[in-house]
């Protein structure tokens, strides 16, 4: 389990619009990498290109290479669906399926794909995933209740459990705490540090303290102006980015002078 990600000269387009330009990055397996930067700088776009989710929008395409270990995600004949089953994603707002119970939400990755399994297998997956998401103790007595009945923080952990349940190689998180209160945020951050033992995690965040707390490495993205492509400015150990960044833009951003 857990694979590394390598981007080589990656450009992401929406139609003719170049959204992200020339990203080169190597993300090690079993690590937490944070993407920071001002709004609209392309970090979410880049994150979504890591599991081809950006293709949901019409006209989206990429140039360059994006390797999952040694396999090109955008290679010929690659099925985006297979990519997504290996690279899971947690979204900005918790989005449990409203028609499913908590249990079915965790099993969604299997159920939606029509996988058959025995009840004991399913129970094992549900318990494992919910324990992995630090949610088991809170919901074990109401697994058949709708997932939408949980609190926001619990819903987000349910979404993480749903992602973990299909045993992906990589987990992408797109500002997973931005809709949550501080206590729930802390719970998610704890969870991230634990998940790191097994998964490669990439997280986009607007909260610089959060990036400092959870990540080993940090990439800073910026944009020159409206209509210009976003670029990765600097990528280094998190402590380096926050304490003595080499790029002046990075320094101005982390010290709160803009963005």
């Amino acid at each position: 389990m857990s694979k590394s990600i390598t981007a080589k000269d990656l450009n992401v387009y929406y139609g003719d619009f170049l959204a992200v330009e020339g990203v080169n990055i190597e993300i090690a397996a079993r690590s937490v990498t944070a993407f920071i930067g001002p709004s609209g700088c392309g970090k979410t776009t880049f994150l979504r290109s890591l599991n081809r989710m950006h293709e949901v929008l019409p006209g989206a395409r990429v140039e360059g290479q994006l390797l999952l270990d040694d396999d090109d995600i955008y290679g010929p004949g690659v099925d985006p669906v297979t990519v997504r089953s290996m690279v899971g994603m947690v979204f900005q707002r918790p989005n449990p399926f409203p028609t499913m119970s908590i249990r079915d939400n965790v099993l969604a990755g299997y159920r939606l794909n029509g996988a058959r399994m025995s009840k004991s297998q399913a129970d094992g997956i549900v318990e494992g995933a919910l324990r992995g998401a630090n949610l088991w103790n809170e919901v074990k007595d109401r697994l058949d209740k709708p997932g939408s009945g949980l609190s926001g923080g619990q819903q987000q952990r349910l979404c993480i459990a749903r992602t973990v349940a299909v045993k992906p190689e990589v987990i992408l998180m797109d500002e997973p705490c931005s809709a949550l209160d501080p206590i729930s945020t802390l719970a998610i951050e704890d969870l991230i540090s634990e998940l790191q033992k097994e998964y490669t995690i990439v997280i986009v965040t607007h909260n610089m303290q959060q990036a400092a707390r959870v990540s080993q490495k940090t990439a800073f993205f910026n944009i020159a102006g409206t209509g210009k492509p976003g670029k990765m400015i600097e990528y280094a150990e998190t402590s380096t980015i926050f304490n003595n960044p080499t790029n002046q833009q990075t320094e101005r951003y982390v010290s709160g002078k803009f963005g």
Partner: protein
Amino acid sequence: MTSPGESHSPAKATEPSNRQEPSHNALTTSDSGGVMGDRVFSGLALLAGVAILITLAFVAIFLSFNSVGAVYREEEGLILRQFLEYAYPLVIGTLIASLIALVLATPVAVGVALYISHFSPPRLSKSIGYLIDLLAAIPSVVYGAWGMSFLGPALVPVYGWLHQHLGFIPLFAGNPSQTGRTIFTAGVVLGVMILPIITSVCREIFIQTPKLHEEAALALGATRWEMITMAVFPFARAGIISGVMLGLGRALGETMAVALVLSPGLLTASLISSGNSTIPAEIALGFPEAPPGSERQAQLIAIGLVLFVITLIVNMTARWIVNRHKDFSGAN
């Protein structure tokens, strides 16, 4: 048009051919059954959409094909003139009934829509909307029965009075009907039937009036009516027009109410005596009796085609206004 079967694959198009292919890519080992599922499903969806277009085309084709017999006879060749003489009183009758309906229904419908959107207690406005929608739920044959048995007789004294005092106007000349089964009664029934249609379109538009504009007017000290004329009506003008057009489309094509209410006859200017007929009523009354393949049947299908074309134009105009308005309001 992108084929929906490739909905996931915009990236494929951009794959540079010079990309170095890894000797083995674990990501390509995918289940082919799932891919087939996507293809089949999107194909079915596309097929359904195309089927609708084909159906509509068939409606036009079949009607045109079957109406040839009305304008062409083997011995005499083209008999267009004969058909026109048959069709024009019906077209005019249809227009008269629909116009009466529009004139009566439009002010009331706009008023009701305003009542729901700006006057009624906010908690009740939704239920009141449902109540008006119930008008649209009543089947047309029931309206026909009501118009024939209740509204018509109730209007007889009105017709008598109109004839007595305004008989010099051609509209009220002629013998006033003693059963009330006149084109005017039919028009009133049609008006009731299109009222909920116009109301619901207007209501939707009125509700969408930008709150900012309304509050700007009120903050200047405008009364509620002044606010409505300053903020709501300019915003909703196109919507009201298209609602009226949709109502007109419905009134033109409505069959049963007219077939039951009106005692049909020759074309006459009088609204209060029996006479006139409309295209849908003519078809409904004549078609079951027309032998298949006969010239009579062809004639009925031909006026059906005429009705189809008229309503098509009316409805397309209405939609065109709505769509233009959509762009307009989006820009603001």
